[in-house]
């Protein structure tokens, strides 16, 4: 891997580096084998062939049929397509959609857009660990409900949702079920057959593939309108010349991720749990956000009271550590993360959140380094904070 040696990259939920094997696999498709898969001469036929074998490979990884895999420009497009495409195609049948309050904006904002177009949307609450309650979800179903969209795993707090149960409820009621699996695919087992998923979004850059390419899985027989109208690509459902190299990169990255899935899960879980335990024990007034067990193997999200997230990130950056926060101060908006608010954190505690997300290149030594650095940073910032009662005055609640 080619990161500067000094940098400790702990923001894999934001994006991952593109593996060199993946870049290698992509390169020929820029220069030598650049043919448009829709053309008829030999180099074009070759492009067609590799796109179709990439499709087969992705289908295998998800437990799907190749004809159910549609390449897109990434997670955002896949989510938009699923939400708007299903809502519009089924409008005569009903105009009600159910989703959760902790979805990525790529699901939430299309849902809000549909509200403006006259649809009604239920944004389900979550419990303090970020879980959607299947019972509450079932109660929200009406005869007008045409779509349920619940993410497989949350990008901020790592909570893994009960997708199998939700898929079964949706199936029982004859409602289409979409899941945003952008943070899950390539990191935990996902099977569209076992979990009765009708639509699933994934994005290559979250599993060491390139940015700007993704997939929407669409179960055969699902009623959905196109999002992009134009050429006849992707069996007339998604117009636009295929991102040839990107598609090769996506399938190659997914194949490699699937080969070491369980080994890497176990390895990251150990690092994750060491990081969580170490931070909680060395920093008073800290709390874990998300679920203690139903959690992505690479996700750590901790709130440090009395400090603000952006100043934690800047301090970490000075040590070459890349991380992220749910504080509003990094985004320029007034509100801290909607996910942290939805799990019930007070605003000022949400402001002090730190997300560290692990990837393949992270090592035990790096975890030690982080554990050595973070407590000092928090202490320094707390010493500056007018909210901090001081060490001696700490009250443990």
């Amino acid at each position, binding site marked *: 891997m080619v990161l500067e040696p000094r940098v400790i990259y702990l923001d894999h939920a934001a994006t991952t580096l593109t593996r060199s094997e993946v870049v290698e696999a992509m390169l020929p498709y820029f220069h030598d084998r650049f043919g448009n898969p829709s053309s008829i001469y030999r180099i074009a036929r070759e492009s067609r062939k590799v796109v179709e074998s990439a499709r087969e490979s992705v289908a295998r990884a998800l437990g799907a049929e190749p004809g159910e895999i549609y390449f897109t420009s990434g997670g955002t497009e896949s989510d938009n397509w699923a939400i708007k495409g299903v809502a519009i195609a089924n409008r005569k049948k009903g105009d009600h959609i159910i989703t959760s309050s902790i979805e990525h*904006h790529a699901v939430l904002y299309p849902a809000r857009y549909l509200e403006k177009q006259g649809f009604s949307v239920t*944004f389900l609450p979550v419990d303090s660990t970020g879980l959607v309650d299947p019972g509450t979800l079932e109660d929200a179903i009406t005869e007008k409900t045409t779509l349920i969209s619940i993410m497989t795993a949350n990008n901020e707090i790592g909570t893994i949702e009960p997708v199998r149960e939700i898929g079964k409820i949706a199936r029982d009621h004859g409602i289409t079920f979409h899941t945003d699996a952008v943070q899950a695919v390539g990191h935990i087992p996902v099977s569209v057959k076992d979990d009765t998923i009708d639509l699933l979004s994934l994005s290559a850059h979250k599993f060491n593939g390139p940015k700007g390419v993704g997939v929407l899985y669409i179960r055969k027989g699902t009623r959905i309108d196109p999002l992009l109208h134009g050429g006849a690509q992707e069996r007339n459902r998604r117009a636009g010349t295929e991102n040839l190299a990107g598609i090769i990169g996506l399938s190659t990255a997914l194949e490699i991720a699937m080969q070491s899935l369980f080994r890497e899960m176990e390895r990251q879980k150990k690092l994750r749990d060491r990081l969580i335990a170490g931070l909680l024990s060395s920093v008073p007034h800290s709390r874990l956000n998300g679920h203690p067990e139903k959690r992505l193997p690479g996700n750590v999200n901790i709130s440090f009271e*009395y400090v603000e997230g*952006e100043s934690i990130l800047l301090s970490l950056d000075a040590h070459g550590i890349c991380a992220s926060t749910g504080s509003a101060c990094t985004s320029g908006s007034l509100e801290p993360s909607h996910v942290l608010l939805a799990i019930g954190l007070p605003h000022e505690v949400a402001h002090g959140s730190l997300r560290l997300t692990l990837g393949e290149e992270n090592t035990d030594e790096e975890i030690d380094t982080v554990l050595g650095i973070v407590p000092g940073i928090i202490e320094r910032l707390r010493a500056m904070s007018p909210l901090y009662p001081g060490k001696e005055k700490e009250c443990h609640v």
Partner: protein
Amino acid sequence: MYSEKVMDHFANPRNVGEIENPDGVGEVGNPVCGDIMRMYLKIEDNRIVDAKFKTFGCGAAIASSSMATELVKGKTLEEAWEISNQAVAEALEGLPPIKMHCSVLAEEAIHKAINDYRVRQGLSPWGEKTPHYHEGGEECELPEEPQGTAGDGALQR
């Protein structure tokens, strides 16, 4: 995104802490918005002889507090009153537009601390001009309880 000056004042903030028996204290901001600044002043013969701060907030808020305490030290109260948020930002070699409100906080903290002194002296407070405004002009107030929908504009990854 931050200038070297901002990073310097963030990494090595000047005048962090409290003043025992201060002559004036000003606290502005709101932890709900992610920022609180408290400024302590020591005043002798109408001149600020020492200033310290404590701040909960982003890098720009901490750097602005640090710079503001540097700027007020040695000034008369009238001179200190005239220090604008732009002056603080300029002294920091600029702030990103979305961070200008953090420098407004510094200006307000100076005003609050000076007026606290004036009131303690039995003098009438000077007129404070700017309440705490955020980017886009919204006054900072307690947001409503979290609802089932997302906050606007936050960049998500």
